């Protein structure tokens, strides 16, 4: 029962906050709703028995990415900009207008149509099966996977993180003017 409840609440939080990210006018609020959505996804991970992934999700996104986003919004002013460049749909404000949203929804509709087909096929291929509520600890298994089968990807991701660290520091550092 708890898991069903957790699933329902998490799904609601995820979807609701995600939609709020899309529709809210304030970019700062968008960031905070993104935080809610990501927490909801962590909850969904928990219902899938992925305890380690769930906590990593909270750790990385809440502790890192969202705060980074908030900083970026603040450093770039967070106010609305109007483009000086011509667009097909004319001048669009930074947070979009009804035209941009209509285009977005149209494309979204295309993707939905595509995916509905895929999901229906998947539902046929993997009919709903009952899976018990036993959640064995995944931590040690993930540890073994990371240093055995996926060791190359593991090492590469460490190189990637180092590269991102150095790259971000170099790109964002203040340069001499003139």
């Amino acid at each position, binding site marked *: 029962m708890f898991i*069903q409840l957790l*699933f*329902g609440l998490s799904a609601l939080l995820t*979807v609701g906050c*995600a939609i709020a*990210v899309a529709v809210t006018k304030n970019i700062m609020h*968008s*960031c905070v709703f*993104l935080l809610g*959505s990501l927490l909801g*996804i962590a909850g*969904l*991970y928990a219902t*899938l*028995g*992925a305890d380690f*992934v769930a906590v990593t*999700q909270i750790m990385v*996104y809440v502790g890192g*990415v969202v705060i980074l*986003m908030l900083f*970026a919004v603040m*450093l*770039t002013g967070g106010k609305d*900009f*109007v*483009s*000086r*460049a011509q*667009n097909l749909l004319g001048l*669009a404000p*930074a*947070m*979009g207008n009804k035209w941009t949203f209509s*285009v*977005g929804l149209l*494309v*979204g509709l295309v*993707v*939905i149509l595509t*995916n509905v087909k895929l999901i229906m096929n*998947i*539902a046929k291929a*993997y009919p*709903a099966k009952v899976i018990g509520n036993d959640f064995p600890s*995944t931590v040690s*298994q*993930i540890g073994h*996977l*990371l240093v055995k*089968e*996926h060791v190359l*990807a593991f090492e590469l*991701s460490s190189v*990637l*993180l180092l590269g*991102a*660290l150095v790259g971000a520091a170099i*790109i*964002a550092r203040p340069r001499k003017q003139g």
Partner: protein
Amino acid sequence: MMSLVSYLIISLILFIVGLVVIIARKNIVAILLGIELILNAAALNFVAYSRYVTNNLDGHVFSLFIIVIAAAESAIGLAIVIRFFQIKETIHIDEATQLRN
């Protein structure tokens, strides 16, 4: 209530919302938010498949790598945004049409 398809539908909704955000918003930071949503939709799919289909933990490992890549991407992306803001004094995506200057 809980089955593979329900997770797929949630993930699809997340994906669509991310897509709409990416297409409809003109603020680069907002677009990065949309990218995070899409990445998370993919990661959720991996974990769901790993529980309901493959019965091993490779999907978890993949979603961990997705989290790593998302972190790296947002770090680099936001660095670029800040740099872009320093140069153009705006973060409107339609201003970013040239590869130089």
